[in-house]
C-alpha cells in the first residue's frame, strides 16, 4: 500500500510570533511560526488580519527573531529550527516568497539538547545573533554587509561553557546564572563579560533598551518576581501581583513579553500564565534605574507570543484557541493595582504579595480574530446534515475556550446583505456607468417578465431613470464601449448612450435572442434556430453589426474571450451546441466566424467562460508567468470541463474535467484579490482561483445559488451579488487560502466526551480541567471564563460532564454532570447506554479498580480497558457483570476497536490484537495517541512523537487464526519472547511532524476514494490517500525525489530526514512537498518535467487530479 499525504488545513496554532517591517517601508507585519509552517500576516488599517504568504518548511520551528542592519529599512528573519542550521530569511515582496539569504550548518540534525536552535538573541544594533541550545552550546554569528549592501554572515564563534555535569552532583546545588556576553568585533571573539547568580525560578529575559533610549540591562522574569539587572547595578526586584483567588502554593510565571519603544518612552507588557497582562515601567536617571513598577493592564487569554505594533495594535497569539488582534484604547496610565520595587516589603515569611482582581478590558479592545483549531482533541467525520459531502466535527480548544466546531471544506464567506425580492429572479448583473469607474452603478435583476434596476449608492434602491427597459426580461446587461450600457432582451438589443440617447436593434421576423456573449467591445447573440450575429463597438461608440453566421442547430451557450491588453478585439468566440460540442470561432476580420477548433464533450454544455490565468507565484502585483487562456465549460451532467486555448491558433489542448455537483455549473467571472477568478454555481457554489501558482477549485461555504455577478462598491471592493430563491444576496469571499476549512463554532462550552446525536460513537479525551461551579455564567459577563480562565485547582481535582448535542440547532439535548471527583472517569462507562439518541439516563455506576481509558462495544457487550486489564462486561440490572478478562498487557491500554470477532487494542506502549488471547502484536514500542481500524487485518496508529503508521497482520497468520477452532488459544499459551506468538508487519510509516490526536477513515467527496484523515494538536487536518495505480506511485515518488533535490525545504532540514525523524519513512509520498512544484521558477519546473518525461502542465494536472480525489 502506498499513500499520498496531503495537508487539508494547515496548522492554526502559533509557536512564536515576531513583528517588524519585513517587506520594507513602514508597513507593520507579523511573522508567525506554526510548528512546521512559517507565515506572514499583515493587519490592514482597519485591523483585519490578512495572511500574505504561508509556507511549509518541513522542519520544526523552535524560535524566531528579527533583526535589522543599521540604517536599513527592512527586517530579516532568523529561524531556529531542528535543522541545526542557522537560516536567515528575507521576505521578497515582488514574488511573495521568503528568500533564503544565508544558511549555515553548525551540527548534525535533530532537535536535541546540546544542539543550538532553542533560543535566539539579537545584538542590540543587529550586529550579531546568538543561537543557543537548552544545554551548554551557544554560537554567535556576526552580521554585516558587503560593498553591495548585501547581508553577510561570519563563521560561528563559540560561546560555550565547557563544564558538564554528567553525574548530577552539581545539579543538587544548581544555580542559575545570568551572563552578559560581549562580542569584540576587533578581536572577533566573544567574551563572557559578566556573570551573576539569579533567582532559580528565572524563565525569561527581556531586553531593556540602552544607549540613548534607556538605562540598558535586562528584566529577569522569574516565578513571582521581575528583577532588573545590569552590570554594576544593584538588583531591583518587584513582586508580580497575584490574583486574589490563586491558591497560595501556586507561583506566577511570565509567559510572554512585548516591548513598546517610542522616542520619548518605553514600556513592557508581560503576560502571566493566567492571562493577566502587566505594564512594566522603569524610573531611571543618571544613576541608573531607581524604581521598577508593575501595573495591572488587562486580561486576555494566555498567549504564546505578543507583538505590539507601531500602528497601535496588539497581536496576541493564543496558546490554545483563536488568536486575536487588539487595539490600544489607552496605555494604562489610569491608576490601577500596582506593585513597585520601592514599596516591596520583605517579612519573615518572604516578600509581601500584592493582590488584584481581574476586571473587564479597559485598555484594549478586540477588533479581529484569527481562527485557531488548536488543539484538536478529537474528530469525527459524518454526514449528519445529509449534505453532499460529510462534515468534520472536531473538538477544539480546551478548558473554558473549548468548542465543538463543524468543519466543511470550502472558503469562508461573509454575508453582507440578504434582501427579499418581489418574485423569483432568473438572473442578476452589476454594471458600471463608465469603464474608469471604480464601483458599480446598478444592480439589474431579471425576472420572468420584468427587469428591476437598483442603483448602488449609500443605500441600494430601485430607480426608473436608468434607461433600461423594465417590462421585459433581460438576457444580458453590460457596459459597452467606454461609457454606454447595453441591455439584451429576447426581442432586441437596447443600447443606452451616456447622454441618454437610446439605440434599439430589433430581431428580424419572429426570431428571439436566446444567448448572448459579450466582452465590453464585442457582442455576439444567438437567435433561436441557431443563427449567430456578431456586433462590434466602433470608434464612435456605436454598436455595429459585423457578421452573421448560421449554425447547424440551436446554440446552448456563448462566450467571448476578454480583450487582450492593447488590442481592439478578442479573437475567440466559444459556442456550445446541443450536439455535445464546443466550437471555437474566429472573430478576426480576415476569417470572421471561421471555426478554429472543435471539442466534443460528454454532455451538452450549459455555460462557457474564458478565463485568462496568469499562473504566477502570486506576487503582490501579479505575474511573471505568461498568461494562459482557459476555456471553462459547465456541462449538463454537472461536470466542469477546462481546457487550454492556444493564444494564437485557438487550438484546444490539455483538457481536465471535474464533477462539481448535481446541477449543470453556471460560470461567472469575478475578481479575487484583484485577479480574475471563476465562480461556478452547481448544487453548491465553487470558486476557481489562483493560489501560489496553483489553480484551485474550492467550494464556498454557502448555500446553492442561481446566478451571480461580481459586485464592487465603496463598502466592499470585491463582493459578489447573487440570487437564490427569491432573495438577493451580497457577500464577500473572505480569504483565498489554500484548502481552507471554515469552522462554524457551534457552542463554546466544556466538553470532554461528545456524542454526535444518532451515532454510537464517543470520543473521550482526557482533559484535566476545573469547572466553575454551576452553569450560571453569562456570555455577556465581563469576567467570562473564556477570557479569564477557570480558577486553578489542585491537579487531583476533576470535573467533567457528558453532553449530547444536536448539531443542527447547536443545542444541548442532554447534559450529565458528573458529581464526585473520584467517579469522573469510571462513570463514563454509562455513555454506551444511549437511550433514544436524544438524552441519556444514568442507569448505574460500576466501581472499577482503575481508570478506564477506553471503552468499546463488542458483540452486544462492553469491553473496558482498566489500566492494563482488558475486560468484557455484560449489562446487569444493578451494575455491569464481569465476563472475562485478560491481564497480560504490558502497559496501559488507551484505545480499543472491534471488528467482527477481533478486538484491536492500542496500549500506550504497544499495539496488540486480541481475542482475549493476544495473538499478534507489534514489535515497536509506541506511545499511542490515536488508532483506527482500517480493515480486518490492518490498523492505523499515531504516536506522541508525531508518527503515523499502519500495521498489518501477515496473510498466513490471519488465515491460520481464522481456521483455528480454539481462536489461537494453544498458540498463545506457548508464547514467544514475552509477547504474542505472532507479530504484525509495519506497512506504512510517516512522520507528520505534529502530534496526531485522531484518525478516521472517510471519503470527503461523493464517489471519491476513502482516505485516512488525521487531526493534530496544532490544529491541522491532513489526509492519507491510498494510490490505486502503480504508475501514479512511480510518478509521484520520482516527483518527490526531484523536488527533494531541486527544492530543499526552506529552513534547511533535509526532507527525507524530517519525514523519517523517528522511523524511516515507508511507502508514503509527501504531497505537501509535491504541491510546492508550481512555486518553483519556470526553468526548474521544466527541468524536473524533462526528467519525468512530461511537460510542466502535465505535472500540474496530475497534482490537481490527486488533490481532487481527496477533496
Amino acid at each position: 500500500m502506498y499513500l499520498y499525504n496531503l495537508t487539508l488545513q494547515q496548522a492554526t496554532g502559533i509557536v512564536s510570533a515576531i513583528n517588524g517591517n519585513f517587506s520594507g517601508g513602514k508597513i507593520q507585519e507579523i511573522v508567525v511560526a506554526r510548528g512546521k509552517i512559517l507565515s506572514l500576516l499583515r493587519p490592514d488599517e482597519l485591523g483585519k488580519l490578512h495572511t500574505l504568504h504561508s509556507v511549509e518548511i518541513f522542519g520544526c520551528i523552535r524560535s524566531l527573531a528579527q533583526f535589522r542592519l543599521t540604517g536599513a529599512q527592512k527586517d530579516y528573519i532568523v529561524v531556529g529550527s531542528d535543522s541545526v542550521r542557522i537560516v536567515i530569511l528575507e521576505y521578497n515582496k515582488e514574488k511573495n516568497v521568503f528568500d533564503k539569504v544565508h544558511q549555515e550548518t553548525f551540527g548534525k540534525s535533530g532537535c536535541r539538547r546540546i544542539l543550538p536552535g532553542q533560543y535566539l538573541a539579537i545584538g542590540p544594533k543587529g550586529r550579531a545573533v546568538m543561537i543557543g541550545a537548552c544545554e551548554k552550546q551557544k554560537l554567535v554569528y556576526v552580521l554585516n554587509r558587503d560593498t553591495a549592501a548585501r547581508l553577510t554572515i561570519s563563521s560561528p564563534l563559540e560561546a560555550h561553557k565547557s563544564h558538564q555535569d554528567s553525574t548530577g552532583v552539581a545539579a543538587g546545588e544548581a544555580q542559575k546564572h545570568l551572563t552578559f556576553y560581549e562580542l569584540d568585533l576587533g578581536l572577533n571573539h566573544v567574551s563572557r563579560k559578566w556573570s551573576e547568580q539569579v533567582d532559580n525560578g528565572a524563565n525569561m529575559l527581556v531586553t531593556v533598551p540602552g544607549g540613548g533610549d534607556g538605562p540598558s540591562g535586562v528584566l529577569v522574569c522569574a516565578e513571582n518576581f521581575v528583577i532588573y539587572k545590569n552590570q554594576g547595578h544593584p538588583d531591583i526586584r518587584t513582586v508580580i501581583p497575584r490574583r486574589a483567588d490563586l491558591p497560595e502554593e501556586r507561583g506566577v510565571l511570565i509567559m510572554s513579553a512585548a516591548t513598546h519603544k517610542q522616542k520619548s518612552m518605553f514600556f513592557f507588557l508581560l503576560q502571566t500564565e493566567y492571562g493577566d497582562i502587566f505594564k512594566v515601567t522603569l524610573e531611571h536617571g543618571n544613576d541608573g534605574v531607581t524604581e521598577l513598577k508593575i501595573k495591572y493592564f488587562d486580561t486576555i487569554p494566555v498567549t504564546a507570543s505578543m507583538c505590539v505594533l507601531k500602528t497601535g495594535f496588539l497581536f496576541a497569539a493564543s496558546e490554545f484557541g483563536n488568536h486575536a488582534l487588539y487595539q490600544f484604547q489607552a496605555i494604562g496610565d489610569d491608576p490601577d493595582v500596582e506593585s513597585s520595587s520601592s514599596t516591596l516589603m520583605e517579612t519573615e515569611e518572604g516578600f509581601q504579595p500584592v493582590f488584584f482582581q481581574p476586571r473587564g478590558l479597559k485598555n484594549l479592545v478586540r477588533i479581529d480574530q484569527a481562527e485557531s483549531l488548536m488543539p484538536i482533541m478529537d474528530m469525527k467525520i459524518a454526514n449528519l446534515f445529509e449534505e453532499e459531502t460529510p462534515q468534520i466535527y472536531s473538538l477544539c480548544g480546551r478548558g473554558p475556550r473549548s468548542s465543538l466546531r463543524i468543519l466543511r471544506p470550502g472558503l469562508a464567506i461573509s454575508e453582507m446583505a440578504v434582501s427579499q425580492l418581489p418574485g423569483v429572479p432568473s438572473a442578476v448583473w452589476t454594471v458600471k456607468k463608465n469603464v474608469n469607474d471604480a464601483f458599480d452603478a446598478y444592480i439589474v435583476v431579471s425576472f420572468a417578465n420584468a427587469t428591476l434596476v437598483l442603483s448602488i449608492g449609500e443605500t441600494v434602491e430601485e430607480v426608473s431613470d436608468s434607461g433600461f427597459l423594465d417590462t421585459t426580461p433581460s438576457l444580458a446587461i453590460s457596459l459597452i464601449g467606454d461609457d454606454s450600457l447595453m441591455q439584451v432582451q429576447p426581442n432586441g438589443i437596447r443600447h443606452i448612450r451616456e447622454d441618454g440617447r437610446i439605440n434599439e436593434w430589433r430581431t428580424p421576423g419572429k426570431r428571439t435572442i436566446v444567448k448572448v456573449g459579450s466582452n465590453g467591445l464585442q457582442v455576439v447573440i444567438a437567435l433561436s434556430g441557431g443563427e449567430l450575429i456578431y456586433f462590434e463597438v466602433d470608434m464612435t461608440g456605436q454598436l455595429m453589426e459585423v457578421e452573421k453566421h448560421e449554425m447547424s442547430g440551436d446554440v446552448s451557450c456563448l462566450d467571448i474571450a476578454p480583450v487582450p491588453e492593447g488590442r481592439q478585439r478578442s479573437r475567440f468566440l466559444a459556442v456550445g451546441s446541443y450536439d455535445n460540442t464546443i466550437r471555437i470561432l474566429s472573430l478576426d476580420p480576415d476569417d470572421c466566424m471561421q471555426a478554429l477548433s472543435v471539442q466534443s464533450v460528454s454532455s451538452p454544455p450549459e455555460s462557457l467562460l474564458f478565463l485568462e490565468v496568469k499562473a504566477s507565484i502570486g506576487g503582490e502585483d501579479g505575474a511573471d508567468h505568461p498568461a494562459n487562456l482557459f476555456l471553462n465549460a459547465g456541462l449538463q451532467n454537472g461536470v466542469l470541463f477546462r481546457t487550454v486555448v492556444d493564444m494564437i491558433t485557438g487550438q484546444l489542448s490539455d483538457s481536465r474535467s471535474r464533477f462539481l455537483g448535481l446541477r449543470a455549473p453556471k460560470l461567472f467571472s469575478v475578481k479575487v484579490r484583484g485577479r480574475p477568478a471563476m465562480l461556478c454555481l452547481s448544487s453548491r457554489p465553487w470558486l476557481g482561483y489562483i493560489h501560489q501558482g496553483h489553480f484551485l477549485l474550492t467550494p464556498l461555504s454557502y448555500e446553492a445559488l442561481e446566478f451571480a455577478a461580481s459586485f464592487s462598491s465603496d463598502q466592499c471592493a470585491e463582493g459578489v451579488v447573487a440570487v437564490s430563491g427569491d432573495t438577493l444576496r451580497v457577500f464577500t469571499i473572505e480569504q483565498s487560502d489554500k484548502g481552507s476549512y471554515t469552522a462554524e463554532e457551534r457552542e463554546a462550552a466544556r466538553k470532554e466526551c461528545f456524542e454526535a446525536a444518532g451515532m454510537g460513537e464517543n470520543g473521550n479525551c482526557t482533559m484535566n480541567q476545573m469547572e466553575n461551579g454551576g452553569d450560571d455564567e453569562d456570555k455577556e459577563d465581563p469576567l467570562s471564563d473564556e477570557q479569564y480562565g477557570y480558577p486553578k485547582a489542585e491537579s487531583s481535582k476533576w470535573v467533567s460532564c457528558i453532553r449530547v448535542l444536536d448539531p443542527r440547532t447547536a443545542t444541548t439535548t442532554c447534559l450529565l454532570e458528573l458529581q464526585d471527583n473520584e467517579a469522573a472517569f469510571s462513570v463514563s462507562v454509562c455513555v454506551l447506554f444511549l437511550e433514544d439518541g436524544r438524552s441519556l439516563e444514568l442507569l448505574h455506576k460500576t466501581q472499577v479498580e482503575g481508570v478506564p481509558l477506553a471503552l468499546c462495544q463488542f458483540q452486544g457487550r462492553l469491553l473496558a480497558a482498566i489500566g492494563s486489564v482488558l475486560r468484557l462486561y455484560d449489562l446487569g440490572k444493578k451494575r455491569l457483570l464481569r465476563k472475562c478478562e485478560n491481564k497480560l498487557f504490558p502497559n496501559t491500554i488507551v484505545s480499543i476497536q472491534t471488528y467482527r470477532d477481533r478486538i484491536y487494542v492500542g496500549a500506550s506502549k504497544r499495539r496488540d490484537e486480541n481475542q482475549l488471547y493476544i495473538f499478534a502484536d507489534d514489535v515497536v514500542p509506541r506511545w499511542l495517541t490515536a488508532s483506527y481500524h482500517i480493515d480486518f487485518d490492518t490498523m492505523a496508529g499515531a504516536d506522541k512523537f508525531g508518527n503515523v503508521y499502519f500495521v498489518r497482520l501477515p496473510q498466513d497468520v490471519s488465515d491460520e487464526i481464522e481456521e483455528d477452532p480454539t481462536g489461537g488459544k494453544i498458540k498463545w499459551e506457548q508464547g514467544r519472547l514475552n509477547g504474542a506468538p505472532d507479530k504484525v508487519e509495519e506497512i506504512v510509516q510517516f512522520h507528520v511532524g505534529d502530534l496526531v490526536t485522531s484518525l478516521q477513515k472517510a471519503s470527503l467527496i461523493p464517489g471519491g476514494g476513502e482516505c485516512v484523515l488525521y487531526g493534530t494538536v496544532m490544529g491541522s487536518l491532513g489526509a492519507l490517500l491510498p494510490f490505486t495505480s502503480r504508475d501514479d506511485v512511480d510518478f509521484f515518488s520520482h516527483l518527490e525525489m526531484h523536488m527533494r533535490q531541486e527544492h530543499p525545504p526552506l529552513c534547511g532540514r533535509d526532507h527525507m530526514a524530517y519525514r523519517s525523524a523517528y522511523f524511516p519513512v515507508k511507502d508514503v509520498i509527501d504531497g505537501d512537498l509535491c504541491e510546492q512544484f508550481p512555486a518553483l521558477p519556470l526553468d526548474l519546473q521544466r527541468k524536473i518535467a524533462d526528467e519525468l518525461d512530461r511537460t510542466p502542465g502535465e505535472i500540474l494536472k496530475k497534482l490537481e487530479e490527486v488533490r481532487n480525489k481527496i477533496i
Partner: protein
Amino acid sequence: MQASDRFNINSQLEHLQAKYVGTGHADLNRFEWAVNIQRDSYASYIGHYPMLAYFAVAENESIGRERYNFMQKEKTIKSCSSGYEVKC
C-alpha cells in the same frame, strides 16, 4: 599530557565526550546513562511544541508553565533511583 597521548583513542573519546554532552562510553554507569536519557527526553519535549501542548492539555497548565517545569527538571535531575551510590 604528552604529544603522543593526544592521538590515542581514549583521549580522543574524552575530547568527544566533553564536546558532545550525552555521548556514552564503556564505563558509563547505569545512573549516568539514565540521567542522560531523561535530560534528552526533557530537551526533546521542550523542542517539540506539539508535544508540549499535548502535555499542557493533559496537565491543565499553560504551555509556558510546562516548558518551565521541564527546563527546571532537565537542569536539576539528581537521581533516577533513590539510594544509588553515585560514582564520581
